[in-house]
């Protein structure tokens, strides 16, 4: 039995269905990310686990204990689940020290030592303890919120888009620091986010959510390279989706013969490649001749953006694929390093590495 189990959890607000019956299992000590576009129901799910609201149907158990079953629910303050909200939700009327110590009993001995210790753990300077929340930067506020939640030694920590208010650079470093910290403390963590990169890098298990249901649950790699459907594929990153004919572990596609991750045989199928699987090599029109099994393209656009360069490539000699009209002359959009990017009008040779994923 898993540490946290949700089965058939459903919640509606009037006519709006927020959750349509969700199942999820979270192992002890693991990190799970729930990712989905805004309004998909992920925050509602988090609120149900935290106990801020009760589900209409379904069961939530934590470590074998039933937290919610149908309408009956253990209230939030008896669950011992830590929550870090989107913007920290620090108490504006209390100092940082009192914010961190909020969940501790006032009489708890070593209260002050523990507050200092927690501040240290989350990387806060001791000097900020006397300040008020509004005097802190966004990143510091998040650290306080984390320390406050950790103070009550929760078995489960819920993070509700805690990094979304931070700058891009700070976001990545905070994410890594928090992940390591919770790992060390052995706290099971669930992160809710709409940022797919955050979900993939943070978690050991990712659940993609849409319209109140999980589209797919699995490891980050599984989800990225073997998404169940087009929506999951595109949600987690750029995807090149092509019509193909598959047989014997290979696909015949507009990009030629590509290895796929299935042995089955199908005349009409769709395959997915991540753009980074396609390599470009500079050549010239002269270089194209006499190499019929190779694939060439012309660069029609190139947008330089510093480290990355977005390149549009129109295929010049696509082997005749099934329903080729579907892609026609639509150029492939690829991202390459900014250094040594091809210029518009240049001819490039395309090669595919790794296997393409076949949608069921």
């Amino acid at each position: 039995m898993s540490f946290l189990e949700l089965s058939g959890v459903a919640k509606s607000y009037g006519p709006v269905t927020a959750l349509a019956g969700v199942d999820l299992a979270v192992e002890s000590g693991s990190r799970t990310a729930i990712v989905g576009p805004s309004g998909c129901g992920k925050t509602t799910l988090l609120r149900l686990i935290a106990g801020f609201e009760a589900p209409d149907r379904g069961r939530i158990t934590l470590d074998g204990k039933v937290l919610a079953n149908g309408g009956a629910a253990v209230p939030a303050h008896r669950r011992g689940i830590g929550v870090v909200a989107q913007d920290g939700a620090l108490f504006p009327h209390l100092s940082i020290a009192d914010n961190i110590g909020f969940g501790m009993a006032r009489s708890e001995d070593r209260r002050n030592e523990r507050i200092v210790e927690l501040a240290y753990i989350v990387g806060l300077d001791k000097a900020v303890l006397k300040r008020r929340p509004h005097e802190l930067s966004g990143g510091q506020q998040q650290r306080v919120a984390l320390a406050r939640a950790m103070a009550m030694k929760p078995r489960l920590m819920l993070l509700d888009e805690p990094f979304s208010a931070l700058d891009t650079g700070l976001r990545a470093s905070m994410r890594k620091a928090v992940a390591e910290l919770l790992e060390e403390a052995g706290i099971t963590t669930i992160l809710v986010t709409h940022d797919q990169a955050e979900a993939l890098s943070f978690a050991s298990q990712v659940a993609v959510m849409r319209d109140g249901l999980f589209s797919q649950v699995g490891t980050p790699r599984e989800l990225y390279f073997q998404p169940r459907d087009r929506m999951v594929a595109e949600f987690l990153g750029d995807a090149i989706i092509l019509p193909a004919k598959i047989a014997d572990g290979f696909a015949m596609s507009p990009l030629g013969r590509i290895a796929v991750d299935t042995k089955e045989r199908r005349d009409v199928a769709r395959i997915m490649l991540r753009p980074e699987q396609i390599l470009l090599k500079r050549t010239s029109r002269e270089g194209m001749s006499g190499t019929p099994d190779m694939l060439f393209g012309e660069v029609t656009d190139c947008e330089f953006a510093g480290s990355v360069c977005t390149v549009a490539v129109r295929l010049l000699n696509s082997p005749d694929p099934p329903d080729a009209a579907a892609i026609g002359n639509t150029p492939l959009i690829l991202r390459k390093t900014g250094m040594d990017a091809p210029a518009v009008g240049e001819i490039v040779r395309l090669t595919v590495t790794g296997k393409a994923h076949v949608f069921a």
Partner: protein
Amino acid sequence: MFGDRLVDDSRLRFDPPEWHIAPLPPAGGGDPAACLMQSTIDMTPARLPAARMKERRPTSWITLAAALISLVALLPLAFIVWVAIQTGWDTVAALIFRARVGELLVNTVLLVLVTVPIAIVLSVALAWLTERSDLPGNRWWSWLSVAPLAIPAFVHSYAWISLVPGLHGLWAGVLVSVIAYFPFLYLPIAAALRRLDPALEDAAAALGLGPWRVFARVVLPQLRLAICGGSLLVGLHLLAEYGLYVFIRFDTFTTAIVDQFQSTFNGPAANMLAAVLVVCCLFLLALEVMIRGEERYARVGSGAARKQQRARLGRATLPCLLLPAGVALLSLGVPFVTVSRWLLAGGTEVWRWDEISLALGQTLFLAIAGAVLATLAAMPMAWISIRAPGPLQRLLESCNYIVGALPGVVTALALVTITVRVALPLYQTLFTILFGYALMFLPRALVSLRASIAQAPVELERAASSLGRSPVKALWSTTVRLSAPGAAAGMAMVALGITNELTATQMLAPNGTRTLAMAFWSYSGEIDYASAAPYALIMVAMSLPMTWWLYIQSKRMAGR
């Protein structure tokens, strides 16, 4: 972070007028760098020395005007000090340190100490029920909790005394005061409750606090500002009210000052009572500043707050309904029943239309003229308090608030004496009474104006300047125009105050003046309650729209 803030502020921007030229594509939505760059460009002209010189000029005129008005506002206070010095210490001591002053002090202090806490508890309970619970009809109850403001305090008292003729003393005073003034606490508390970020309550619950402790440790502390402000307002009204306590025979400083005034006109005894009363007011003001502290209770962080959940009352619904229903019955039902009863008893005979229409017209005239004057006087101070704040400005501004906090009887007494002794041509003139109103109600106008000027970004003024308007014209075409709704709001508040003003009006009014409040007071003084009833009804009818507007405004300020 910085970028986020800028994006946040953009919500305050106004819809652009219809463009006839194709607009430029939006500059990258939430791209922080783009916003940062734009704002850098915007600010460059202001750094040029020539531009700054031009900007300074209206500022200095306005500062001068604001300083002048603030100093003039100090007249009543200066007068009290002057009288004390003139009277000589021995007489002052004899007039202040006597048993009667002690009695009045005990009465007044007890009244404030008992009334304010009861009003706080009642208002918090009502605000919570109407804003945070699923009480049936909570919008109605919310309005009914504000509506008692439309009834002048002395009409409340009149209603109660006709219903329970023997009502008198401290507890009667507390009862009627709570009923008449609790909306001053309810309004800010309800608004604060609406604004509270529910995420904080969730966070506290997740940290292991039960609902009651969440309320005590998270919700209540965040209501502190609202409670402080509301309590101050109630406290000052308790100190200043006259009519209410006369009906129920409870002597406070204000009633005693009026008694002395009626016995000796502007004798030193009245002025020394006024001095003690002023000290009480200043004490309350200082106390509020101390308790409030320099706190910030706004939401930390960005993004919109989640919509609050309402607590389910379940089986407690019925008992909970009893509270707002009971309060509505006492605060609205009693005056309604009494006034109706007297109107029925009086029949058509009490509707002396010639008298009533004259009083109505005069009241309206005084209210409108006073409101315009107070708003004009508040404009310079409001402008510099937003555009050029500083220590001197804060000092000047606080002068206005202190004088506004003084009871009308004190201001009126000072003006009567000053005009009689020094400026006789102004004695008993329209000018003096309007001047008195302006002093008394300036803070009302100031608060509304400030809020609305704060909403008009200075960039607009600069943009207007850059489009070729002179500074004053730029000010007129942007800030003044945009703050017009706030100015109107302030005027309405002042007009409401003047409509229901009694003591200062009686002391300052030019010969032949008879306002609604004066007529009401004169009839009820002769126990002709039936003849007083139409005036009570008209005052309530005039106040209702303004109270409604206040209610709507408080909802809007809270963003819901």
